[in-house]
């Protein structure tokens, strides 16, 4: 029997490195050259099916621009199972920024978080300023996954998300682990405000698996 697991994935990276475009490509297989900064769509989901028929559902959190003035809320990192930290291969400063985000994740997020460093805009390799070697070396030192992607052409996009899915602890459902949870479909012991059930007692939401 196949199983479905859900994980919270957060996106990080300097403004305009293509975080939202990367997700748009992954989730809807679309690309928009003149995409404005993120408005109104900061919570997407996409499912990846692994070879053993396990399906991994990513609940993807976009920064909604709150990273721009260092104003991301701790809530953003809370219970994140994985993070994609994006830089732009044509902007060396964006890799520096990525390093800062990675330090922030190591400080704030759950220690078991899976982090992928992602060099976006590989279609612009003619203007490359960050070498593959440099980024890979850093990723190896920090124990991060690493890949280059192009949200524009789609190159490497599905691959990096699939690689993350494979690296997640698929043996135990995330909601069973300490600190995880807050997933719309996962098992949880809290109350569901969206359920209108006046008069009902003990609204414990049951696991739907």
């Amino acid at each position, binding site marked *: 029997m196949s199983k479905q697991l859900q994980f919270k994935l957060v996106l990080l990276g300097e403004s305009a490195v293509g975080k939202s475009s990367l997700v748009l490509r992954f989730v809807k297989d679309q690309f928009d050259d003149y995409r404005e900064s993120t408005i109104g*769509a*900061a*919570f997407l989901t996409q499912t990846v099916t692994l070879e053993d028929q396990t399906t991994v559902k990513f609940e993807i959190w976009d920064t*909604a621009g709150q990273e721009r003035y260092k104003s991301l809320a701790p809530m953003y990192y809370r219970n994140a199972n994985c993070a994609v930290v994006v830089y732009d291969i044509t902007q060396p400063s964006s890799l520096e920024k990525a390093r800062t985000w990675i330090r922030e994740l190591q400080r704030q997020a759950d220690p078991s978080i899976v982090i992928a460093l992602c060099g976006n805009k590989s279609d612009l390799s003619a203007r490359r300023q960050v070498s593959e070697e440099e980024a890979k070396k850093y990723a190896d030192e920090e124990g991060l996954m690493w890949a280059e992607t192009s949200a524009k052409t789609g190159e490497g996009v599905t691959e990096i998300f699939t690689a993350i899915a494979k690296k997640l602890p698929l043996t135990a459902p995330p909601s069973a682990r300490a600190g995880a949870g*807050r997933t719309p479909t996962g098992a949880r012991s*809290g109350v569901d405000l969206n359920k209108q059930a006046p008069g009902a007692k003990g609204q414990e939401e049951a696991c739907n698996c």
Partner: protein
Amino acid sequence: MDEEYDVIVLGTGLTECILSGLLSVEGKKVLHMDRNDYYGGDSASLNLTQLYRKFRPNQAPPAELGRDRDYAVDLIPKFIIASGELTRILVHTDVTRYLEFKQIAGSFVYRDGKISKVPSTEMEAVKSPLMGLFEKRRAKKFFEFLQGWKDDDPTTHQGIDLDKDSMKTVYEKFGLETGTQDFIGHAMALYLDDDYITKPARPTYDRIVLYTSSMARYGKSPYIYPLYGLGELPQSFARLSAIYGGTYMLDKPIDAIVTDADGKFVGVTSGGETVKAKQVIGDPSYFGAGSESEGGKMRVVEVGKVVRAICLLKHPIPGTDDSDSLQIIIPQNQVGRRNDIYIAMVSSTHNVCAKDIYVAIVSTIVETDKAELEIAPGLNLLGPIHEKFVSISPLYAPTTSGESDNIFITRSYDATSHFETVVEDVQDIWKRVMGSDLVLKKREVEVHE
């Protein structure tokens, strides 16, 4: 920062964040700033380092309290009443998807020297020591009257006019004892003092209905609470605002509120730069709260003081069946005061502290110049107190409505046990800022499968 905004919001407390979120959803261009480098202002939840920095600047948190990051200690003790307006806003804005809620396990009331559970079911009511047998019958008739009330059916009114008759008249009609009145007015209608008794009964009726429907919704108590503390609430609404285009800047000291010759709002100066906007909304601390009047004009006034003692315990509160979370109300009459004393307690079940620690906040409205003594009846119920942080906070209210100068100031967080007055403030400010009532529209679903 040379852009011009519709609204600048100052401070990221819950009131400001709800307004910011709703305004952004409405399509307003919002700039939201806070002088602190964290979200929440007075409604933040602090980790141990932040807590000690605030109350004991010269002392590091003791290691035996556990990991810093396990703590999220609320500064303002409030719960969410399950069927209240905040719940409605949370659901309508879909902000619930960022949050997880748990019940508060019990609601207790102090009477004649001991605490008893506020009955949550008929069975508990029958067994409750709060009323004698005959009083229980009278109370039953009273509650049946309230439950059966229909505005358009005079046969359900039993000769009472909720809009004209005082609550005193209603109590007398059903022959309820003073102790029962205390219980109904304070533990259910959640009034802080007895002023309501001589006023028309309608608001009390509404409050009792809110309480009982909230109680019925999840069972154990009328309250729910967000995991990781109340500080999650402003963060979630800030995210809502950001998703709809709101710009966020933390760690921005505000140097001046700029007005024109007529005193109308022009912009906000921060770090030598002035950002312009049509309107400004902010908490009292950005408008001269606690300082001398600004250019002869007082924008906020102190309307009272609340004393709050944040207590860390290493045991559940005695006599509460080891509840992992609770509210205890000490009605004013029971301890010879004008205002009730509240105890709000949460624990590691709510991911707000290390395991085996219990965080209880005792609070009341200050009546004398010895505020800390006033909460002693509450502190005495806690058992040994491991650590205690006491603060006395002035409550501020704006002196003007903002309609003439486009400066809209929110109210400080009051001594009530829930957020209903916060939502009233939101609705009130919305109406003044937008010129129309706040109507909650269901947010378009943005989850893409």
